[in-house]
């Protein structure tokens, strides 16, 4: 019987992993006997939509999923959380395999809440609200998980903290539980395909990168947490080793990530910039940093003078206020392309505080996706090659912001994740959207998509 196990490490970065590999015997063995390459992520390189793009082989434009929240309509307040129904028509790989008699175990893949019926068992990822919700398929699996590990942890609570020792213990406990569940699932269920995602590396990167990376602007060489990030990876490697020892020897192994990581150098106030350049108008400028969503909800955006507004996060999303599209649009349809071009050029030219180029990239969805469905942002912005976060809150009184509007955060995402395979191969770059085809072909199935 053919078996394939995908171990997903959210945010695992090829440069970092290359540095740490000598200390990680399980991953090093896989990389040396098989192959280790970079894996190009989606645009944007974000957990949602990246993992489900990997599992469906469809890019965010085809999926109509451009982030954790998407516009459900062209109103100003219509952002809604993504859930698993967004991927129901995209044929996740386990559905394809199920139609060909291959049973799957799916554990922690972001974008799988609420769980949908499938040929096998599924434990939802970290967008499950809590363990009171139905987060497994079949439903009764949740009770078994509780018997195995007690309270199951989707994610780390109260992540934004300067108490790094506490954060590390929480991430470690979460990872330990997830791998304990993984070992029980592969031992107790019939399966041909196994896929899990461990979110811990992402949380450790965001929480600990400055302590590890001597080039980080906030690095403290005397920090007691300098070794915490490598220590987590050594712990993770032991968890992977224990899981691998539970798998039949002939199992094909893939260790992949949805995107990489890099130091975060600062934040760029996307709406602050729009205000200063005459593209966004408020009725009154807030006294303290205030979310754009709150300003919109409270009627403090003057739409009659607003060309565009932005959303923050690890990347920027910019929405134009278009006539007959948005409720009080002012950008005429005939000016849409020219406005996008002008905004793209001006945003790409925003320098750092010293006047040096940030190397910002601005993308139009129609130029980067095979197809565009749903309601995409009009522009997708990577400030400073993603070394700068997009800050959507307003009230800072400046554009370059080194405080984080959501608490301590050391890292941002990068466009290349990792690809480690137990099958020998070259170290040329792979693409995340090709993983599904690789899985399907491993089982000798012609990919219907």
């Amino acid at each position: 019987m053919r078996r394939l196990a995908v171990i997903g490490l959210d945010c695992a970065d090829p440069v970092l992993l290359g540095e740490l590999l000598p200390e990680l015997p399980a991953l090093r063995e896989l990389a040396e006997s098989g192959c280790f390459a970079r894996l190009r992520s989606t645009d944007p390189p974000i957990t949602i939509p990246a993992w489900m793009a990997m599992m469906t082989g469809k890019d965010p434009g085809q999926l109509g999923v451009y982030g954790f929240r998407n516009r459900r309509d062209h109103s100003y307040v219509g952002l809604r959380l993504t859930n698993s129904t967004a991927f129901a028509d995209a044929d996740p790989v386990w559905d394809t395999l199920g139609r060909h008699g291959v049973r799957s175990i799916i554990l922690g893949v972001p974008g799988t809440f609420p769980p949908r019926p499938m040929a096998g068992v599924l434990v939802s990822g970290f967008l499950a609200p809590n363990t009171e919700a139905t987060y497994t398929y079949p439903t009764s699996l949740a009770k078994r998980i509780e018997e195995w590990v007690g309270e199951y942890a989707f994610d780390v609570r109260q992540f934004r903290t300067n108490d790094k020792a506490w954060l590390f213990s929480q991430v470690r406990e979460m990872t330990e539980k997830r791998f304990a569940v993984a070992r029980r699932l592969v031992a107790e269920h019939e399966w041909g395909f196994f896929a899990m995602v461990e979110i811990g590396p992402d949380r450790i990167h965001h929480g600990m990168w400055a302590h590890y990376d001597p080039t980080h602007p906030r690095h403290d060489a005397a920090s007691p947490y300098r070794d915490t990030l490598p220590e987590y990876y050594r712990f993770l490697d032991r968890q992977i080793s224990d899981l691998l020892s539970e798998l039949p020897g002939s199992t094909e192994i893939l260790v992949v990530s949805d995107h990489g990581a890099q130091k975060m150098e600062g934040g760029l106030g996307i709406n602050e910039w729009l205000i200063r350049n005459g593209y966004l108008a408020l009725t009154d400028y807030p006294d303290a940093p205030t979310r754009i969503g709150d300003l919109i909800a409270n009627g403090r955006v003057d739409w009659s003078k607003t060309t565009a507004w932005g959303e923050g996060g690890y990347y920027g999303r910019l929405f134009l206020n278009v006539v007959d599209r948005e409720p009080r649009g002012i950008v005429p349809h005939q000016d849409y392309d020219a406005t996008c071009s002008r905004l793209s050029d001006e945003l790409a030219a925003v320098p750092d505080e010293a006047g040096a180029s940030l190397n910002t990239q601005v993308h139009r969805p129609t130029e980067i996706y095979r197809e565009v469905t749903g309601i995409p942002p009009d522009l997708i912005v990577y400030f400073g090659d993603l070394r700068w976060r997009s800050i959507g809150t307003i009230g800072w009184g400046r554009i370059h912001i080194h405080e984080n509007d959501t608490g301590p955060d050391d890292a941002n995402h990068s466009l290349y994740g990792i690809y480690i395979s137990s099958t020998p191969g070259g170290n040329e770059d792979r693409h995340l959207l090709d993983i599904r085809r690789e899985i399907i072909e491993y089982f000798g199935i012609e990919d219907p998509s």
Partner: protein
Amino acid sequence: MRKHKKIHIPADLAQAILDHLDELGAGTIEEYVEAVLRSQLLRAGHISAYSQEEEEEVERRLRDLGYLD
């Protein structure tokens, strides 16, 4: 604990589910029927993936994690 209501489905349909329970991934016929109904109602937009409180809680968590601001 959720409240339950009894419904009836045709015996041949119930038997078909029982015959394929293992490959359908469910432990019982009730588990399978509930999951299918929930999935279909979600897709049709007749029920929500999250309650209002759950959605606010998840958004707060995503903000805390840095995905949103």
